[in-house]
């Protein structure tokens, strides 16, 4: 009994000493800041920064290979913490970028040429006879962007995607996923947004979709600030001139122009 106990205790001490020695001498030196930053970052591994994930970005930040604001997903608080850990200054003046869908071709509004019964994938749907909708520019409605969203802040409603802008992190995965390139990142508080990409002429656009921009130019004529110019049957905005009066949105005969949700809410609460 006793020899066995002594032998086992001896072995235990020996291995313990070995492990203690190894952990000192063979320790991997890791910058503490890497772990600190990783904890601050969103941890979604969405890849929007261009690195393999949050851990890879943390390392790149510490090694100075990435900009302090490289994470487009993290809110200003998180970016400020990152800057603090790295001992740098972050410029947080810019407004938040969110994904906006430039199409309101809902099931009610957009005309279709045939019914599509294939797989639920926008690229596949677009490959069949140029898509089932009359409009060759707009949303195909199969929800490839919703599937691509790693933050679960998009959903399909009436055949077009809706972005929950307050949850959107602006990672841009949906922008990449859309074969028709109708999703873009824009400032959350951009005073007016054009919800149409159709460059078709008035007649053609109107026949394709009742929410389409027909290129009528009423918005440009209404604007007192001269901030709107028509190009390819679509208005182009100069936000340096725009005073966010909303007259163009009022003037638009279709639903092609709109004010961002944040502004609408602000206006609603002040009334």
């Amino acid at each position: 009994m006793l020899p066995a106990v002594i032998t086992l205790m001896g072995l235990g001490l020996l291995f313990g000493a070995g492990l203690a020695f190894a952990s000192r001498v063979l320790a991997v030196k890791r910058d503490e800041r890497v772990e600190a930053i990783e904890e601050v970052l969103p941890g979604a591994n969405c890849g929007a920064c261009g690195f393999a994930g949050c851990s890879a970005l943390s390392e790149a930040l510490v090694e100075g290979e990435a900009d302090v604001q490289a994470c487009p997903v993290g809110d200003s608080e998180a970016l400020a913490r990152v800057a603090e850990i790295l001992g740098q200054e972050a410029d947080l003046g810019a407004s938040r970028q969110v994904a906006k869908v430039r199409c309101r071709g809902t099931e009610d509004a957009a005309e279709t040429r045939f019914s599509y019964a294939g797989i639920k994938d926008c690229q596949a749907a677009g490959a069949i006879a140029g898509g089932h909708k009359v409009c060759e520019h707009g949303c195909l409605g199969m929800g490839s962007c919703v599937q691509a969203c790693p933050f679960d802040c998009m959903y399909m409603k009436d055949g077009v995607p809706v972005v929950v802008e307050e949850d959107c992190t602006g990672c841009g995965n949906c922008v990449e996923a859309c074969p028709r390139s109708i999703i873009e990142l824009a400032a959350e508080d951009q005073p007016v947004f054009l919800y149409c990409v159709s460059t078709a002429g008035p007649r053609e656009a109107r026949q394709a979709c009742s929410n389409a921009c027909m290129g009528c130019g009423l918005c440009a004529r209404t604007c007192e600030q001269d901030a709107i110019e028509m190009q390819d049957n679509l208005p182009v905005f100069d936000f340096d001139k725009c005073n966010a009066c909303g007259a163009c949105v009022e003037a638009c005969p279709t639903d092609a122009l709109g004010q961002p949700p944040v502004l609408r809410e602000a206006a609603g609460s002040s009334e």
Partner: protein
Amino acid sequence: MSVKTFAGGVHPPYYKELSASSQIEDLPAPQQVIIPLIQHIGAPCQPTVEAGDEVAMGEVVGDTDAFVSAPVHASVSGTVKEIGETALPDGRKVQAIIIESDGEDRISGEAALQQQRTLQSMNADDIRDAVRKAGIVGMGGAAFPTHVKYSPPPETDIDTIILNGCECEPFLTCDHRIMLEEADEIVSGLQAIMKACGAERGLIGIEDNKPDAVEAMREAVRDHPYQVEVLETKYPEGAEKQLIDALLGREVPSGGLPLDIGVVVNNVATAVAVSRAVKRAEPLTKRVVTVTGDAVKQPKNVRVRVGAPIRQLLEASGGFSEAPARIISGGPMMGTAIYDLDIPITKGTSGIVALSHQLAADASEEACIRCARCVEACPISLMPLYLAEYDQESALQYNPLDCIECGSCSYVCPSNRQLVQRIRLTKATAQAEQEDSS
């Protein structure tokens, strides 16, 4: 009697009895034809006429200098109404010449002049030239310019010509009727093709569900050194690569063409067109199309003008017996559903199939259960389930570009997975990668 075949494939119900016994019926010229400037694989044609021009039947209305292409001809005589746009049966939108018919079918002067020619007086280049001028493309459906098949690179020798009379697509019977009614023309076309390619061996492959066609062709080749081979009735027996494998035991290399192994395969309808082009300088302005399906009142085989609206064919068949669920251009396995009856018949349109809701029911897609039935069915020995994976990165490892999109995998899938559509996405990605790297 032993029948030849290939590995893989499926046995769909054929429904050929609907139209197999109906003799080819010549339809009159429609009031207006729409001649798409691209009806083939290759470069599009440029219009050679203008709106307002008078054209004779058989006159060239579109041509190009590109080698892999084929000119298009007026299929009626009349006036060019406009140079506009049309959708093709596969949905692509292309430029087209729209001709209003005067109902006289005047034949163009040049074609009338050359009506006396014999094969003996022509060499291989003459035949190739005649085939190109006639605008002949593969009439089985793929519409590959035929003269290109007869122009192998200098180091390649063509030893065998195969005429494809398999007609493995369900429902279609146009090739069957052509073999019964124009067997001699097919053989004379084969003679011309053999001479154009310098080949020694001529084979005609027919599936064993068409014994009358086998008999008719055997009768027609009695005084010729050609063989008529009987093949198992199995889909896709008539796919070029599968037919070569079944008849000769040769495999077309991955990414290669039948030319690489010394073989040219032509559809029997193409052989008829070649014969007419060689003997009478007759351009390809008509073709035989099967109008069939369980939603058509009188299924039949019709000879129509290229550019005739699909509506004309359906009206000639008595219209619909019930509202169709799908109208397909081509066969049900590889054809495409169409949504507009004013889409024109092209040189490659072999059938118009209108299916009832019973036959074309939409099945809901379930998850893959890894049963590997698609692997067994694939005639190319690919693994469709992996090719159709959502993760295209991994799908790219399984040679997507070898897929011939025959649809056997989608047909056998017990989970109703739309495998071919998914594989097409993978193929598009693979194609883009190949172009990037080259």
